[in-house]
């Protein structure tokens, strides 16, 4: 299709307005918009609208019962004198900082193992993927609560092999966050599948060339596999990081909504929920939500900025 000049489009518009037939291009555009209309309406009505409403609410005091009261940036200022807020930030950063690298490392390790042409690969792949399907569900959180309880399966097993006072996985405030991290790491399935697909894409001749140059398996992994996987590492890192910042269900279920013991599992989102829906501080909750949005955007932007120093695209080299 040839490009139309600006003058041509004006003429076309006039013609369309005069009731003549639409050009194929305009028809195409209309069809396109009609097709994305359901999504567009959903985005405007169910995402953008509520987001803007929540932005406005974050500058108000609102308990649902009486109309929102404009209080300027007071909600944001109050956050900085709220010790539970800082505690929730700390807990969340630990969760993100520990669970994401562990999960990606684990996913990569298993992807490499599975890529070596195991027999029954599809079965293993499916099995390893199952936790990801279940992991964020309420049922699994309840299962973990039972398994890691003081008289649960895990401690019964540890006692059976001779550890007489195993840790209280869920009721010791300094341990409970790591139990949640373990649950997150266990859901390594989806990054694993993505890594596996990436490993399949790496051209064999590169490994052959490396072998001829005398590289061993480990050197090949570091010099060939990792660099060629960096685009996928970037992708997984960003997705998993955003997911971890927004994690809610495991802490909510395992602590019964309190973030306990002693706020040991008080995720940012859980504290937000408590403020908004437990204490009906909707404005405060909205301010927390926007702060989280900004922080996640900053982290994501930061990762993208650094990516040009460490992410390697095959096309660039050719």
């Amino acid at each position, binding site marked *: 299709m040839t490009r139309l000049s600006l003058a041509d489009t004006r003429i076309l518009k006039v013609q369309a307005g005069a009731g003549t037939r639409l050009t194929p291009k305009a028809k195409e555009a209309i069809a396109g918009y009609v097709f994305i209309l359901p999504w567009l309406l959903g985005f405007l009505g169910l995402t953008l609208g509520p987001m803007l409403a929540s932005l406005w609410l974050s500058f108000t*005091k609102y*308990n*649902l*019962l*009486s*109309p929102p009261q404009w209080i300027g940036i007071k909600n944001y200022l*109050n956050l900085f*004198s*709220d*010790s*539970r807020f800082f505690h929730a930030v700390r807990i969340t950063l630990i969760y993100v900082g520990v669970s994401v690298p562990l999960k990606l490392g684990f996913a990569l390790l298993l992807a490499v193992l599975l890529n070596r042409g195991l027999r029954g690969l599809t079965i293993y792949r499916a099995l390893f993927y199952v936790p990801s399907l279940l992991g964020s569900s309420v049922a699994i959180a309840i299962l973990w*609560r039972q398994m890691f*309880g*003081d*008289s649960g399966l895990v401690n019964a097993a540890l006692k059976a092999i001779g550890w007489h006072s195993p840790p*209280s996985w*869920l*009721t*010791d*405030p300094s341990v409970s966050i790591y139990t949640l991290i373990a649950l997150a790491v266990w859901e390594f399935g989806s990054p694993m599948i993505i890594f596996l697909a990436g490993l399949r894409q790496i051209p064999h001749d590169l490994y052959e060339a490396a072998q001829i140059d005398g590289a061993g398996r480990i050197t090949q992994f570091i010099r060939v596999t990792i660099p060629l996987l960096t685009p996928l590492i970037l992708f997984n890192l960003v997705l998993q990081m955003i997911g971890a910042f927004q994690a809610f269900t495991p802490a909510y279920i395992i*602590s*019964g909504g*309190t973030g*306990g*013991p*002693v*706020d040991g599992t008080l995720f940012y989102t859980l504290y937000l929920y408590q403020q908004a*829906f*437990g*204490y*009906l*501080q909707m404005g*405060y909750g909205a301010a927390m939500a926007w702060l989280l949005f900004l922080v996640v955007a900053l982290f994501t932007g930061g990762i993208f900025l650094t990516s040009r120093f460490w992410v390697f695209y095959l096309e660039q080299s050719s």
Partner: protein
Amino acid sequence: MINRRRFISQTATAALGVAALPLLDACAGGGGNNGSDIALAWWGGNDRVKRTTKVVKLYTAPHPNVKISSQFAAWTSYWEKLNTEAAGGSLPDIVQMSVSYISDYTQRGQLLDLSPHKAALKLGDFDKQQLAQGMIKGKLTGISLGANIPAMCYNSSAISAAGLPAPANDVTWDAYPTYLSQLAKKLPHDMYALDDGSGFDGGFTVWARQRMDDIFDDDGKIAFTENDLKDWFGYWDDLRKAKLLVPGKIEAAYAQIGTPDAEPLVKHQAAITPTWSNFVSQYQILMKDKVALERFPQGGDKAGDYVQASQMFSVSSKTKSPKTDVDFISYFIHNAKAVQVLGVERGVPAPAATRDAIKPTLKPYDASQIDFYNKVGPLTRARPKPLPSYSGALFDALTRASQAIALGNESVSGGSSKAFDEMQKAASS
């Protein structure tokens, strides 16, 4: 969890939360002049749903013109929904109301003043304390459906097996540790004398009211100080150090599960537990040993014990059928059949005649709530003021501090100062 106790005392049931499933509203057409459609809302678990639905059926059977549609939910989602409805000006006609929110709702003009309907409500023998808790600034906007009293629930079988008398009803806080240590010596070695009550809102309120008028002042501000909190947590910490108290690790394990069957008293890890008086029924259902109630230890210069309306019925100020609403509430609290179905599930009923009428029909453990109420009720000091709406956040801070101190994560003074700071924030937000 001890703050779950408060939560459950408000729901007065062990049943897990019920999803917010409005019953099908089978109303046909609008209500004519002689008919009414009433929307009824309450929070609570399965047992309450069964009992309440049954009473609705009993009421509507002889009133074919009245259609009652019910909506019920667990505590948190109930308030989310009710607040949204209030914001939209579409509150159900009759709503179950809590002492924590009645003040807000009344002051925002959401609730109907029922004073002109006193005759229809037949409040002659209605408990004065429960009546007062539904009275906000001269307006009667809540009719209590039952009340509880903070109490010490004890395993009387275990205590008599240890050869000790039951806790006395006039024991002082100062003398209490002596009794507990005598008890601890005779109890089985894995049973502690007392369950940790330092995070229990009712217990703290009773104790604090013995030294001051109330924990909230007339303007709904916090009336106790950080030092009061230190004294309170310090008292319990001394018991803990003397090994008279269930240790933090066991408490935390219970809090993690949170249901009554995991409570130290039920699991024979404690001989006495501070709780709301209605819990005696749940414990007795779960235990072979006999359990009984006694009031809190005494001290200070005032009576601290109080009766708390666990829930009330309020009428929306926008209702189109105030007479029918009032008639239904009156039926709910007086009618012989209705009160028998309801029992003490919402707490001990306020009308004396109702209490007397249902007592013979109750299970012994339910009847023991009424006995305790009749015995301790006259010794309590009235608490007519409603709770401020931030009280939920305040008591959560109490529970967190209690847990942090019990687990050794905070010192008594550190935990108290942190909790007091959080409480002040909650009060000012």
